[in-house]
């Protein structure tokens, strides 16, 4: 049993930007993390070498359940100036659903009504503050 939510752990390991790439490419799936090799750790497709190495060090040889992090993605897309409709298509939910997540982000609560984890709150803050140009553009194709 883990003593910390995986989101917190992943954020500490790879940082907010790589986290965005991770959840956009693999959110909701079980991802096999290759074993750590000091000389040449296999790179996870879509993540940089640094992030892949950090993940391999912590989770090498394991399957991790990558969180969907809809709240985080929503904040990043919102910062890019996307409309609710565009965000809805990217997240695979309805416009009403986007409105609901926005309200939850404002209140700092999760779907079940519990408080959002510290990791998720930090992610949301990072999504709001980091300049949008620096987020990877390759993730634009997601959700199609």
């Amino acid at each position: 049993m883990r003593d910390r939510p995986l989101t917190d752990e992943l954020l500490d390991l790879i940082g907010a930007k790589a986290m965005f790439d991770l959840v956009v490419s693999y959110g909701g799936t079980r991802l096999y993390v290759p074993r750590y090799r000091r000389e040449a750790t296999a790179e996870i497709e879509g993540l940089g070498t640094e992030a892949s190495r950090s993940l391999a060090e912590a989770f090498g040889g394991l399957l991790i359940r990558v969180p969907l992090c809809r709240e985080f993605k929503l904040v990043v897309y919102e910062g890019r100036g996307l409309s609710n409709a565009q965000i809805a298509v990217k997240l695979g939910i309805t416009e009403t659903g986007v409105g609901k997540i926005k309200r939850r982000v404002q209140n700092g609560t999760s779907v079940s009504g519990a408080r959002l984890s510290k990791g998720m709150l930090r992610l949301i803050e990072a999504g709001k503050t980091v300049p949008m140009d620096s987020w990877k553009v390759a993730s634009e194709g997601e959700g199609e």
Partner: protein
Amino acid sequence: MRPYPSSEAFPALFPRTMLPPGNMDFIGHMAFLGVIGIVSDSLRGTHMLPTGSMGFFARARDLAAKAGRQAHMRPNIIAEEIFELLTPESYLDLVTQYGGTRLYVPVCKRGKNAKIPGLDSDAATALADAFGGLFLQVPVAREFRAIVYWERGFSNAQVAAKLGLSESGVNKLRARIKAGKTSSGATFSKAALRQIEAAKSIRLDPEKDAGT
């Protein structure tokens, strides 16, 4: 030709008491309603028609707004109507690109083709003929899309990424489809079952396959 709005088609807009006498045409009907409105509004506040109720024109505006909203408040029926109008391939294009959003359908003149970005002109024209000038609540159609992807041999992880769900969410979806239940636990309607059958038989352009 669009049918002349009658009490049967728009009961909220044209209650029986507002129906004109005899076989009056559209302009005559409007004039008739205008006269009723002016007379009744001018009598408000007198002993004949005490205040406290909404004025005739205000009431008409209110009813029209409600009737407009009702079109959006029946997304399930609209979703079925959309599916019946389009080919399964066009329906897939629509829900992939606009699923979950409110899409404005342009008004199309007779004999002209409508344009909706990402849809072929036949599909756009069919939508415009039926819903021109309205906002459509396009369904997310997860069941339909998931079946199309499974039929193409995608793994659960790939389907999850495409639908924006978790893998366990996709497993639940699969179990629900097998049991013939919607997310609320209700049994699939006949229209939903038709959609599932259509999704299984869909044939797609291999070039398009890479993009969807």
